């Protein structure tokens, strides 16, 4: 979630809220055996990844969570691109999982969903953003499109 005033700043509380929603919705999807919820997460993550103002996770954070005062914003100097890439990877996993559920391949679907749950938990609890690590590795290797190097001071 990019801070509007400065594109090199990221509200990490917004990211945490997104991760928490991903975890809760995917756990609910598994318990309820619902491809719809998996698809909802995939679409939400995709809209977050392309950074549209009406991305559902962004709306939940800016319109509900932040005004309620439950959590404090934590806007820090950071590249938003690696976090968006991480969301994109998650959305691809979830999109494949939703399709797999629709075509009758539940084992593949739930393995993919549990991978996303595990990665989201790593990020939420331990700040290990595997998608961000992938992004910076691609940047180091000179892969086109991965233009942002780590911010250092």
């Amino acid at each position, binding site marked *: 979630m990019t801070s509007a005033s400065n594109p090199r700043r*990221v509200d*990490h509380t917004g990211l945490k809220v997104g991760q928490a929603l991903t975890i809760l919705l995917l*756990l609910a999807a*598994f*318990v*309820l*055996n619902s491809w719809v919820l998996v698809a909802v997460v995939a679409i939400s993550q995709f809209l977050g990844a392309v950074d549209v103002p009406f991305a559902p996770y962004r709306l939940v954070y800016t319109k509900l969570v932040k005004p309620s005062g439950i959590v404090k914003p*934590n806007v*820090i*100097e*950071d*590249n938003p691109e690696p976090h968006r890439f991480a969301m994109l990877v998650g959305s691809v996993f979830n999109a494949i999982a939703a399709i797999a559920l629709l075509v009758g391949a539940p084992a593949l679907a739930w393995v993919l969903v*549990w991978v996303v749950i595990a990665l989201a*938990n*790593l990020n939420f*609890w*331990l*700040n*290990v953003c595997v998608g*961000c*690590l992938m992004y*910076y590795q691609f940047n180091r290797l000179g892969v086109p499109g991965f233009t942002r190097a*780590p*911010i*250092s*001071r």
Partner: protein
Amino acid sequence: MLERLLFTLILLAAGVVIYQLSVRNQIRRTSAFAQTDPLLQAVKPGVPTILYFTTPTCAPCRTQQTPALARLQSELGDAVQIVRVDATEHPEDADRWGVFSAPTTFIIDASGHTRAVNHGVADDHKLKRQLQEAVN
């Protein structure tokens, strides 16, 4: 649905238990070599130490963990030593200490034993409390 709920709860509980056990194991394992570890050779004996692993890509390290440690250092002065290690420059040290994410901070007591480990940002209040527990 009930069996799926049960499976989920068991998996989540297992995750918590495995994490707690791995933290305990990390404390026990690093305690065994902390006194003679090359990273801690320059520290003054008899003074608690915070061993801080960071990386250049770690935004919370730069904006939260490092300032928190600076505040703690200015408050406690010579009563605490802080050793900062870039895990990407010294991957063998990070491996030896079992560091898999940044920031990671280890609380080493005055006798050179690991007393606590924090995965993720630990604010100065938490670190101070852990240091006090390490002294007692």
